[in-house]
């Protein structure tokens, strides 16, 4: 396992240039147009005062100084402070919004995995028959679905016409559970707060179904292809020849083996989950990272946007790393 440590360290080190490149792109491009002070004051304060505030924020220095100053801080683990409003530390801003994104992502991910593996397995075991074609089409269609559109359609149906579910927000008035993890559903369960739990789940249903359905198609396709491939393998034939039941063959031997490539793809598809989460959040005014990002771009809150980019990049790296570790755990052939 020592070699696994080496592997992790190497992967993390490789992430550094990636983050650096992304940051440079974002950093330079963001400064092309506009600045936060003007975006907020918008002509109200006298010009001299605007200049003065820019100076306080260090926005009047040459870009290259700003850039290396920022990188220097970043290397010390400091994401800096927001440039607008309260100049709150960017870490706090992210910390306030991340649990919402996490909660949405987790529930959407679970929904997509359940739907995806189920439909994919059915398709793979009904190769070239009606159910196979149906679920393949399902895979293609869901991938082409435009999240805001599905979201709006669900809002119309369940929110506006049927009035069953709220169409935005995370929880009802005065229902916020005591914060432990920041995930409302989990916190409500931990504090046994029944009202909060109901409210949190109600608010979570539409956004996570929207995102979950969108992502499920990918898992349908992945499961189908890889399970089909696996079911062609000799050891499946061998397992059948030993008299194992079809369920044992498909689930224990087939799906478990097919899961390895699916897992790798999950890591690669993780970026898609984040993208989907951003759109879902904006459609459902879900107070997460996507909403934060969009709001701060409009105000040219450079440091917060940069912070979010770094954070997203770190998440992507971490998840990929995690996938590799799980991969090594599931597949005895892999040892780093």
């Amino acid at each position, binding site marked *: 396992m020592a070699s696994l440590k080496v592997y992790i360290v190497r992967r993390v080190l490789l992430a550094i240039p990636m983050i650096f490149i992304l940051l440079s792109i974002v950093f330079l491009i963001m400064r092309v147009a506009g600045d936060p002070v003007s975006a907020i004051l918008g002509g109200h304060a006298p010009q001299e005062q605007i200049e003065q505030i820019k100076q306080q924020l260090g926005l009047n220095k040459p870009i290259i100084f700003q850039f290396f100053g920022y990188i220097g801080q970043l290397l010390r683990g400091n994401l800096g402070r927001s440039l607008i409003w309260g100049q709150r530390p960017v870490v706090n801003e992210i910390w306030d919004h991340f649990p919402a994104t996490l909660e949405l992502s987790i529930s959407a991910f679970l929904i997509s995995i359940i739907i995806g593996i189920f439909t994919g397995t059915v398709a793979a075991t009904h190769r070239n028959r009606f159910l196979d074609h149906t679920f393949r089409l399902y895979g293609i269609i869901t991938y082409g679905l435009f999240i805001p559109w599905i979201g709006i359609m669900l809002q119309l149906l369940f929110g506006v016409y049927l009035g069953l579910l709220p169409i935005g927000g995370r929880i009802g008035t005065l229902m916020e559970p005591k914060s432990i993890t920041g995930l409302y559903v989990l916190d409500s369960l931990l504090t046994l707060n029944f009202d909060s739990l109901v409210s949190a789940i109600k608010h979570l249903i539409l956004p996570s179904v929207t995102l979950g359905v969108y992502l499920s198609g990918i898992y349908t396709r992945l499961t189908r292809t890889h399970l089909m491939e696996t079911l062609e393998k*000799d050891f499946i034939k061998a397992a*059948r*020849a030993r*008299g194992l*039941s079809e369920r*044992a063959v498909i689930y224990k031997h087939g799906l478990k*083996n097919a899961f390895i490539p699916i897992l790798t793809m999950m890591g690669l598809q993780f970026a898609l989950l984040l993208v989907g989460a951003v759109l879902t959040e904006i459609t459902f005014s879900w107070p997460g990272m996507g909403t934060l990002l969009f709001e701060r771009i409009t105000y040219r809150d450079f440091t917060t946007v940069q912070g979010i980019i770094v954070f997203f990049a770190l998440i992507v790296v971490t998840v990929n790393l995690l996938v590799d570790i799980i991969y090594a755990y599931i597949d005895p052939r892999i040892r780093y």
Partner: protein
Amino acid sequence: MEALLRIKNLKVYYYLREGVVKAVDGVNFSMRKGETVGLVGESGSGKSTLGLSILKLVPSPGKIVDGQILFDSKDITKLDNKKMRMIRGKQVSMVFQDPMTSLNPLMRIEDHLTETIKTHQKVTQEEAKEKAALLLGEVGIPPERAKDYPHQFSGGMRQRVGIALAIALNPDLLIADEFTSSLDVIVQFQILNLMKKLKASYNMGMIFISHDISLVSEIADKIALMYAGQIVEFAPADAFFEEHLHPYSEALLNSVPNVQLSDQKLSYIPGMPPDLVNPPKGCRFYPRCPYAKDLCREKEPPLIEVKPDYMVKCFRYDEKRS
């Protein structure tokens, strides 16, 4: 003595987009308990399909379209999947060609065995483990390696595991499909010897499928030679090697380098095996047969019993008799 397995006019076809491939087309054959039949033929002759159809595991789009497979006087072509599962592994088991791929890479060796045992017998996990250890011992795998994964084993070791799996439930019939062909020669003989030993102690019938006729000669009591989906010669091993009556057998044996007859000229069989979608109308070997006559083109020869237990599918012996 009652036949362990009797196959009557078996036809197994693959329904592909390009047409119907008649992989097994009217095979008749029978074997007794404890007997070893060497099923020999070129690749594509339908021998593997024949082997799989005894377990009813012909992969789709293949289908058993006609005929009977009587095992223990039950026609297994009529059995449903559930009943079939009770036979697979327990009464009829199989050892596969490639030991690399026929074991689940994510499962420990031991788990393969216990899973198989528990599928067919009501035993506890502990009992299954004990049995597994015993079996591994019998095939010559040290007990401490039971917890290893397949990829940690060499090819020969893996094939030993494959054998252990096949004999786990003391089956009446073992089908071994080219099970040594991916191993090097020395290991091949080790495994073959192990197999001989086990066969004797377990009193199993065995169908040994191979394209390597010299290997078959080591172990088989009887030889069944397949050509283009049909059995063309079926005879006791000794008699077969002595007489090899069918023109194809003759050509085949001539093409095999024989260590004893090192100065013998190595010949090969001219022409290609027939297209199984549209096989020749008459005798299937006719286009390549040096003795071919007009009759061979028109009519398919029957399987003729030239002497007790010796059958050949060729008009030359029909003439002899008549």
